[in-house]
């Protein structure tokens, strides 16, 4: 049935969008966690220097 193709497109689109969104979020989160670790590391070395 021709109509089923439309349904298929809709569902494929849904999954593509949502997966893309989650991937973007996850990428950003891991990037930020990396930066946070870096900064925390910098802070602790600075603290020990001061002491």
């Amino acid at each position, binding site marked *: *049935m*021709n*109509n*089923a*193709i*439309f*349904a*298929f*497109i*809709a*569902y494929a*689109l*849904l999954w593509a*969008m*949502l997966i893309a*969104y*989650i991937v973007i*979020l996850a990428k*950003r*989160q891991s990037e*930020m*966690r990396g*930066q*946070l670790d870096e*900064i*925390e590391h*910098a*802070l602790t070395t*600075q*603290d020990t220097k001061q002491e």
Partner: protein
Amino acid sequence: MKDLTINSTPQKQYRPGTSLVITAIASTVALSVGFYMALIYAPEEALQGGAQRIFYLHVPALWVGALAFLVVFISSLGYLFSRNTIWDIIARSSAEMGVIFLTLGIVAGAIWARPIWGIWYSFDPRGTTTLVLWLTYVSYIMLRSIVGSGPRTSRLSAFLGIVGFINVPLVFMATRWWRTLHPAPTIVTSDSESGMPQEMFLAFLVCLGAFTIFYAFLMIYRVQLEQIVERVQTARSTLGLF
């Protein structure tokens, strides 16, 4: 200078913890079940055929969009009364989520409308209201990105979040009256839900629930991310102060 370190960040921190894991598992299960029911379990609709199955996606996506904007409205009010940044983080996360789900809902609706109505889009009350809702929150996100982060942005976007949401029923009323007082387009706008077989209704409900849980999962994840960003940037400016 000790108290300037990042440990003194005033907001409560969400640790990547139980709530995230639970919603992640729950939404995976619920979405899988939902799609099984939508695509296989539910019977084929006699008139519309396969295209009707888009409804199990279209309506829940729009519902989550509307729910997300309700959350923006409530957290905007919460921010204005408490001035706690967490409300603002929830508002901006939810606005972004709402735009994504609404876009999905609108696109899915257009894909459905093409074989059934023969047109991609109809400016009927529901269509127009959805589009205005979408426009309002796209402009909300634009306002935030143009003004930049800060308390002023939070206040301005809270005002927009409130006014934009209150505007929605007005748009719906105005477009409905507009059509009743003008020649209406010759398309059937009713979904004729009354005659829905029980299997269909069940599949529909499961999808609705699954999308809602999925929204909750994304929100928790998004808010957590936003808090990490906040910590990184606070830490950065603290380093700059040394």
